[in-house]
């Protein structure tokens, strides 16, 4: 099981703030592909994922980072604070 969170414009575009996935993808890359496979806006957001950043357990993650049961994955656009 993993928790997946969506923030800012991603949350709005996907109409989803968070969800729980029973199966654990091997990597963040696999998770992106699985989400893109939902089609529609999900495909639009995740098929060309370069402007969607990912964090695993609240730390910035590279695309290929491995996932484990219980992980929290956050997806979000480039940050604009400060």
């Amino acid at each position: 099981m993993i928790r997946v969170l969506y923030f800012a414009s991603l949350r709005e575009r996907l109409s989803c703030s968070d969800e729980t996935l029973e199966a654990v993808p091997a990597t963040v890359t696999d998770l992106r592909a699985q989400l893109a496979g939902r089609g529609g806006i999900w495909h639009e957001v995740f098929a060309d994922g370069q402007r969607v950043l990912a964090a695993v357990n609240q730390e910035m993650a590279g695309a290929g980072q491995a996932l484990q049961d219980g992980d929290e994955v956050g997806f979000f656009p480039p940050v604009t604070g400060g």
Partner: protein
Amino acid sequence: MNVEIRVQDTPLDAVAEIAPVYAGQASIGGVVSFIGLMRDMNQGDAVSTMKLEHYPGMTEKALAAIVDEAASRWDLAGVRLVHRVGEIRPQDPIVLVCVASAHRGEAFRACEFIIDYLKTRAPFWKREQTAEGKTRWVDSRGSDEAAAAAWEDSK
């Protein structure tokens, strides 16, 4: 090193955050502060309000990691980093970065490093409402990416 990091949804009295960083410490010779303020214009449009969203939990970790990295590069006596979230208006302070050190050069470097890294690595997002009532997410800026990347090169 004396460190305080806060994320708050209440107004930020930026100036009041500075003196506590150096008060009572007679070994501190230089204090550099950055205050980031909301402007009333962005990309040519008048902006009336802004909402700052963040990723609770990750935000605090990201800010602490940035301050730790600064402390590993320079000899610092104190750092305070406070960031607003929630609804803000033009002229409201968004962020305060204050760095105290025995020597001014280290305080200048560390203060600019922290704000440059925060701009590209801390999970905050701005959504602004223009004077005409349109709501839009603020785009990230290439100039911010370049500023952060320059610190990588100088490591």
